Structure formats: C-alpha cells, structure tokens
C-alpha cells in the first residue's frame, strides 16, 4: 500500500489535495448548497423554513410584483432593484476613491527610505488591530451633529465671528462612502505597495536613460508594472464593500440600505431566511459577474512581473 503510494504520482496528488478538498466541501460547497435549497423555500408563520421549490423569492427581488396599485396583474416594484443598484454604485465609487487615495500613498511608501518604510507600513496596519465596529463608531463620534468635526468648525467660526450651523453629516450616503473608503484603504495600499516595491530600480534608470522624463517614466513603466497590485486591491476592496452591512448600518442609519443590510435584516429582524438566502445568492452572483468581467480584462493581478 505504502509502496504503491510512493511510486504512484497521481495517488500522491490525490492524497495531497485531500485536506483542501475536505475544507472546500465542508466550508464552501455544502453551505452554498444549503443556501440555494433554502432560497427556493417558503417562510413559515413562526420564521422557519418550509422546503418547497419555487422561484418566488427571486421574482420578488427582481421587483416583479402582483400587488399593484393601478389594478394591473403585474407591475415593477423598484424597492429591491434600487437597493441592488445603490450597492453596486457605492461599491464602485468606494473602490475608485480607494484607488485614488491608496495609489499615491503606496507610491510614497514604496519610494521612502527603507528605514522609514516599515514605520509607514506599520501605520497603515495599526487601525486593523482595533475592532472593525469600534472604528466605525469612531467615525460616528467625528461626524455627529455635535461631533468632533462640527465642534471644531463651530469653535473656529466662533473665533472669526461668523455664524455657524452644524453640518448634517452622519446618516448620509456621504458618511457611508467615507466609512467604506476608510475601512478598506489598507487592503488597497498593501497590494499596490507590494507591486511597486517589486519594480527594480534599474527599470526607472533604463527609462530615464532612454530619454523618458519622470512623468513619462511613471505613465509608461511604473503604472503598468503596478497594475497587478491595483487589480488585486480592487478585488480585495470591491467584494467586501458589496457585502458589508456594518458601515452602512452605523453611518447610514435607515437612510442608506444596501444589499448587505437587506440580507442581515431578513435573517435577524424579518426572520425570513428564504428571502435572505435568495438575496445572498443574488449578491454573490452580482459580485461574481463584476469580478469575472473585471478579471477577464485585467487578469487576477497574480501575474507577478519579474523585474
């Protein structure tokens, strides 16, 4: 038996991937299948699942309604479609903003003196040591009507003697955007930094040697060679922003409901796991579609460009 194993490459391979397979099946495939089965079911009066097969949950999300005001038998109810659209738009905007902020930061860190570089990286990572929720709460303190920002502004206005009405910042889409950008910035900085750091200094010198000024060197050499980092960061940021509900819950209040909030409420408040499951799968499908087209265009960011 052992001898056979030693000689047979393919059974060795099977043995080696077995742990991975067990994990994948146990933690990914089975839960997904359960979610799929539940999403076809119906909610019972006490919030349990009645296992039937129907597409009613999906029909509801897509906004095809039978309870219409004008007396028609079928009409479009944009409630959930709007949530989906809002989630997508927010994820898109956050990701773009995160890229715009993270790239210069990563560039600055990558080109900093090696001694200071570690300090900067440390500073990027420090926020991740505190709890996610606590960091969002900190933003509430800052953004509240009587919060830090308004107090400071009011105090400054008082100094110069102009009347000051506090800004309504908390519970707005803007607050959610700020929260998202803040939360996920490190996940963009790190991969971009990594790919920038990999670029050998001699490439910059070669570009300069061939007549490229610093701006053209950046556009023709630095930027393309750091794209794998941008792509990896985009995937790392876009997917969680699509799904997260804490940021929008705390900073958006009832104003900004995203698909993550919808799912959370179906499971906890509305006690309808069947609709929650359907919404989860829709979220997954949307994320997959976006990442599919994105990675088809840009790759997975894994093609490490050997310098």
């Amino acid at each position, binding site marked *: 038996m052992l001898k056979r194993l030693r000689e047979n490459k393919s059974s060795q391979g099977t043995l080696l991937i077995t742990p991975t397979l067990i994990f994948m099946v146990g933690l990914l495939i089975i839960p997904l299948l359960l979610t799929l089965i539940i999403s076809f079911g119906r909610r019972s009066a006490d919030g349990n699942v009645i296992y039937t097969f129907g597409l009613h949950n999906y029909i509801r999300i897509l906004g095809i309604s039978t309870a219409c005001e004008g007396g028609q038998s079928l009409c479009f109810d944009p409630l959930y479609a709007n949530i989906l659209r809002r989630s997508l738009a927010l994820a898109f905007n956050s990701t773009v903003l995160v890229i715009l902020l993270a790239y210069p930061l990563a560039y600055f860190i990558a080109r900093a003196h090696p001694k200071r570089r570690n300090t900067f990286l440390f500073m990027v990572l420090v926020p991740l040591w505190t709890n996610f929720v606590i960091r969002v709460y900190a933003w509430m303190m800052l953004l509240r009507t009587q919060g830090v920002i308004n107090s400071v502004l009011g105090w400054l206005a008082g100094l110069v003697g102009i009347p000051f009405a506090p800004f309504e910042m908390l519970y707005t889409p803007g607050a959610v955007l700020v929260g998202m950008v803040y939360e996920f910035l490190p996940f963009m900085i790190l991969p971009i930094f990594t790919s920038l750091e990999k670029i*050998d200094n*001699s*490439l910059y*010198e*070669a*570009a*300069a*040697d*061939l*007549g*490229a*000024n610093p701006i*053209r060197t950046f556009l*023709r*050499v630095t930027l*393309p*060679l750091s794209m794998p980092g941008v792509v990896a960061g985009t995937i790392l940021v876009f997917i969680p922003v699509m799904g997260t509900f804490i940021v929008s819950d705390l900073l958006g209040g009832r104003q900004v409901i995203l698909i993550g909030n919808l799912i959370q409420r179906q499971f906890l408040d509305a006690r309808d796991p069947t609709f929650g499951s359907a919404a989860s799968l829709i979220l997954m499908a949307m994320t997959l579609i976006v990442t599919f087209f994105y990675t088809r265009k840009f790759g997975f960011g894994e093609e490490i*460009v*050997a*310098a």
Partner: protein
Amino acid sequence: MSEFAVELQDVVKRFPTPEGGEVLAVDHVTMQIKNGEFFSMLGSSGCGKTTSLRMVAGFEWPTSGEVYIEGIAQGHTPPFKRPVNTVFQSYALFQHMTVFQNVAFGLEMDGAGKDEIKKRVARALEMVQLTGMDRRYPRQLSGGQQQRVALARAIVKTPDVLLLDEPLGALDLKLRKEMQLELKALQQKLGITFVYVTHDQEEALTMSDRIAVMSQGKVLQMGSPVEIYERPNCKFVADFIGTSNFLEGTVKSLEKGMANVFIPAFNTEIKGIVSGEVSVGETVAVSVRPEKIRLADKAVLNQNCFEGTIDLVTYIGSDTHLYVGLNGMKLKVWEQNKISSLDPTAYYTVGQKVWLALFPENTLVMASE
C-alpha cells in the same frame, strides 16, 4: 565635435554608508575617452567601475570633479538629457512590453514618427540578429537574446556614447566569446564610442582599443592592450592582467631604460627593462611572464640565467606548464609544445635540472605598489 567623447576630470565620488561613515568609491579619476574608441574599465569587484560609468550616464553625480560628454560639462544634467545610452548588467528590460516596444521606447521618447520607429527598430533588431522576435516578451527569450534586446534598445537611438556595464556577465563562456566578437564588430560598424566595464581581463584584452585598469577607486594604468600586458606600470597591473612571476629586489643602477636589480633571494643582480617609473635604491618588483622564460640545458646568457629543478609538469595540449624550483622559489614556465611526440620525457620530467634564461628584454622592473 570635441576630440574626446567622454572626459572625467579629477572625479571623486563618496557614498555615505548606513553606519554613518563614507566610502570613497571613485578616487580622483581622470580619463579621456576618444571618439569612436572601444574603451574598457577593468578591475576587480568594488573598484569603482560601475560608479564611474553611472556618473557618465547621469545616475550619480560626482562629489567633486566634472564629467564632460562631447566637450560639454554635464554638471547635474539628468540622465534623460544626456546623449549616452546604457546597457545594464541586469538588462533592465521592460517586462510588460514586447521586444519591439522595448526597442521603440527610446525613439518614442524622442517623438519619432511611427514609420520611422518601425524602420529603425527593424534595423536595430537586424543588427543584433533578433529579426522576427519583435512580438515576444522578454520572459520568452533566452538570456543571450535578452542581452541582445538590451543592446538593440540602447543602439537604436544612435547615441554618441554607449555605456556597457558587464553586459556579458550573465552568459555562459561560449556565448560570451561569441558575443564579444559580435560586440566588437558592431562597434566598428556603428563607429560609436563604447565605454565597457568588465572584471574579465581576457575580455578587456580581446575587445578594447584602450583599457583603464582600476583598483580601489583609482586608475592605475591606461593604455592599449599591448601596453598594459607588455609594459604594466606596477605589480598590481602585471598581476591582474595575465600571469606573472615576481621577484623582489632593490634597484642598483639605471641606464637607458634598463635597470640592474639586486635580488636577495638569488644573491645576484638581474637586468631588466624599466616598466613605469622606478628610482635607484627603490624596492621594486621584477616581473617575468611564464611564456617568456626560455628553458635550456646550459647557461645561454652571462647574466639573468639560473639553474633549477623541475617540480611539476602539466601537459595541457598546446603547452606544457612547469614549475621550476630555484633557491627555494618556484617559477611558472610555459613551454609551447612545438614537437609532436608520444614520449613523455620529451616534455620534461620532474626532478630534471634545467637552466632558465630570463632575457633582459623580457624582464620588467616595476614599482612594487
């Protein structure tokens, strides 16, 4: 056009070290490199070759002194404004660009038109024998081919001066030899000044019009390969270039370019050509190349002739390499095998007594430092 393509005037380069000290990488170097010349900087690791080259390219600025290109002082001119191009030791090819795009890069930066770029890239690729490879990426090429791309990328701009930093360092011996000849041929065809950095003395000797031998940031000697090999101006150069036997002695007298040197180990005087500068009373090195010692069965000279015993015989085909012991020293002697014999004794035997004739015209007296 100025007579010199590149001139280094009393250039000094100091680097700060992380420990807070300073390294003197280039120590008061003055060089004049003529237009169209194949000029090599030769020296062992850390002697400041790369640093000197980088100061010409503009990647480093001299701490003091001045670099001139075509007679124009460069000061702090950035690299992209200097009329020189570099072939990097690591090639530094753009991995995200095809061979064509790599070679076209420099022309695009100059704002050349599409058609012109196409024509010139094709010509450059033809020159380095890479025609047909233009759509490959660097990672799809062998080391030798990547080296050629780096070369094509640098020559396509027809710079006044091409700087090459150990461009063949990563290639195997056979390919290296081939590329040496190709580079030399290319240089003659283009008529561009080549400034070539290498630590391989054979490479420098085969390719260069002139060589600067460097050590510890200083230029020790500058001259043609023949001058460097036949008249090294100090022991370091004689030792670094080729192989040599050294005897230590004191200069007794000098006349007409010849010196009489007392060798304590032999307790006699030896006569040789003054190579470089020596003065009477100075402790000097007497250098004799192993291929220039003549073996005989009797004393063929009144002076400079010694009897010794053969210690070791190594037959290497074209030559026989011998170690001859005399007065407790061992001298290397290389004899060309001008005979064709199967008899091993025809090529000397261990223990055999022989006379060594160190002809004064083949014996060099030079500074020992």
